[in-house]
């Protein structure tokens, strides 16, 4: 049997990759993709725990989380579209209107 830690390790790896992407990328689209990656690494954890504890709660939550990710992505992309219409690009560096 594959130990639980392996799933968790995989999820951590996925999360770190997503994190690295979030930190380094300027483009909003890539940012959202990386966030999706992080969310899904969490889902992986949920499902793994669910299986290894013989309860279904975790899987239910994973479903909820997927639905929320959809909502988040929809809103995110919509915001980016709006920004794009204003600035003609979605470079996050330049969005400093509220800074300081």
């Amino acid at each position, binding site marked *: 049997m594959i130990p639980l830690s392996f799933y968790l390790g995989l999820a951590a790896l996925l999360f770190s990759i997503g994190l690295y992407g979030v*930190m*380094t990328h300027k483009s909003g689209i890539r940012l959202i993709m990386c966030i999706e990656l992080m969310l899904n690494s969490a889902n992986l954890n949920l499902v793994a725990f669910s299986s290894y504890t013989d309860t279904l709660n975790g899987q239910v939550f994973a479903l909820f989380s997927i639905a929320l990710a959809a909502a988040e992505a929809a809103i995110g992309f919509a915001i980016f579209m709006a920004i794009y219409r204003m600035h003609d690009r979605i470079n996050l560096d330049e969005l400093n209107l509220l800074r300081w």
Partner: protein
Amino acid sequence: MALEEFAFLIPVLPALAFVITFFFGKKLPSGGAIVPIAAIAASFVISFMITLGLLANPEEVVSQSVSWFAVLNLGVLIDPLAAVMLSMVTFVSLLIHIYAVGYMSHDPAKSRYFAETALFTAAMLSLILSDNILQLFVSWELVGLCSYLLIGFWFEKPSAASAAKKAFLTTRIGDVMFLTGIIVLTADLLKLAGGFTEGVYLLRFDEIFGYIPQLSALQANVFGFEVSHLTIITLLFFGGAVGKSGQFPLHVWLPDAMEGPTTVSALIHAATMVTAGVYLVARTFPMFIAAPDSLMVVAYFGGFTALFAGTMGIVMNDLKRVLAFSTISQLGYMMLGLGLGAAIGLEAVGVSLFHLINHAFFKALLFLCAGSVIHAVGTQDMRELGGVGKVMPITAATMAVAALALAGFGIPGTSIGTSGFFSKDAIIESAFLFGEHTHNWVPYLFSIAAALLTSIYIFRLIFMTFTGKPRSSYGGHESPAVMTIPLGILALFALVFGGLTQTGFMNFLEETFTNSFVSVDIGSLAEIGGNELVHAAGHEPLFILWLPLIVALAGLGIAFALYYLRAVDLGALASMKNPVYKLLYKRYYQHEIYTEFFSIGVVYGVVAFLAQVVDVVVDSIVEAVGIVTVAASEELRKIQTGVVQTYATVVIAGVSLLIILVKLIMEVL
């Protein structure tokens, strides 16, 4: 006697007159002058009746006390000392008020004038009849306030406003010393009495005098000297008297006080203000005589002031300033007289007060005459006057009488003489007695030299003003009767009061401290203070008796030669090139020393340092906290880049490190 029940009315009536005149004076005829005149007349009648009663029975003094606040009281005490003062003050003040009806007739603000003089008189009367030291101080300060208001009566003249301020501030220095004396006294009494008892007013004179031996036993260490508390207290009291009575070195306000109306000067100099200091020392005389060295200080200051003021008196050109220095000088005599109590005991009070009363008459007369001249002629610079005697015969005659009284003309050994003769010569003789007794001749020399100066400056004034030819064109006329009648009455008193009352007066005042209110044995108190008293008065050599008169005549002769006959050309002597003359004319550079050096230099220097350094530093500490906070946040807020990725990085890194840290700590523990 029923009248004594109303003793409290003596100051209350003029105070009421103040209120009425102040608020309704403008609607009353002649500025409401009738109200204070009536009130003071009533006070005079009450005072005089009480004095007559006391003369018959000096043991039964008037004494009433009511609780004021906390453990302090207000009260009335009329003993012989207070009685003669009350009678004199009400009488002189009454005459001055009547005179002022004429003198102030053209002034638009005369209702304010009469209101303030009424308050002035009320304060002085309350000062005289207070039976405790605190009430005396309260009245003392009110007198100061009124003098401030009256000297600055023509407040639109900058010099008047400035003189008023100077008078108030200079006397205030003395007042603070007086207050300090009261504070020390109260603290000591509290200690000695072991706290307060209901119904016992510790600050009443009978209580204070009762504690004199214990107070004297208390020792304090001041700058390495062991000093009796009583000495400290009395010297502080004397400091107050120095301020109020214009003694050196706090005399500077008195000549400037001439900026007020002349009647105010007369009030201040004769009746209501400067005598307060002398009165204070006389009132607390048992304390002074029981305090080692205090009376000597009084004597030296008094004697020195008498001489010092006299030297300045001989060079002044302003009619009123000469009189002002004359007052300072005569007050010096009174202080000297009190200080001689170190040798002659209680008699000193009689001698000094006798001079005070006589001085009041002739000094009021001198000022009112001067006022009469100024009123008629319109100038008070003696260089521009001359020959006024022809146009104003009554004024000139009364002024001459006053001058004779001031110089002290009379025939020794008889009861013929002006009042100044009897009182001033008594002081000089006492000084001689003192010298004979202690072999300390300094007071005597001071007093005799001052007598010469007195005679010179007053006759210089007479000759320069009333004789010779007019040195400028002025239109003069004799003053109206409302002004000359008071002059006549005062002249009468200046002539005969001394001769008629001398012995009786002295004996009357001897009773001051042994009566139904307080009983003090001056002899034993003098022993406490280390003062040896002599009782052998009256067998001075004939020369000593005649010397004051000879000196006065010499002064008259000098003045006659210099200012009437013009025997010597004074141009060279009385010029600014003569350093002595310049020193005197500049009044020993007091203005430079007091105002420019001390007030502006030292005090303002300290203040500037405090304002520009200390306060700035104190404030900067506060402001700096704010500035540093703002500056720090200006930098620190840049951490908030507004870029989510940065936040995410920092959060993740922080959490990771935190976990490692916690883990490590757990491992170590």
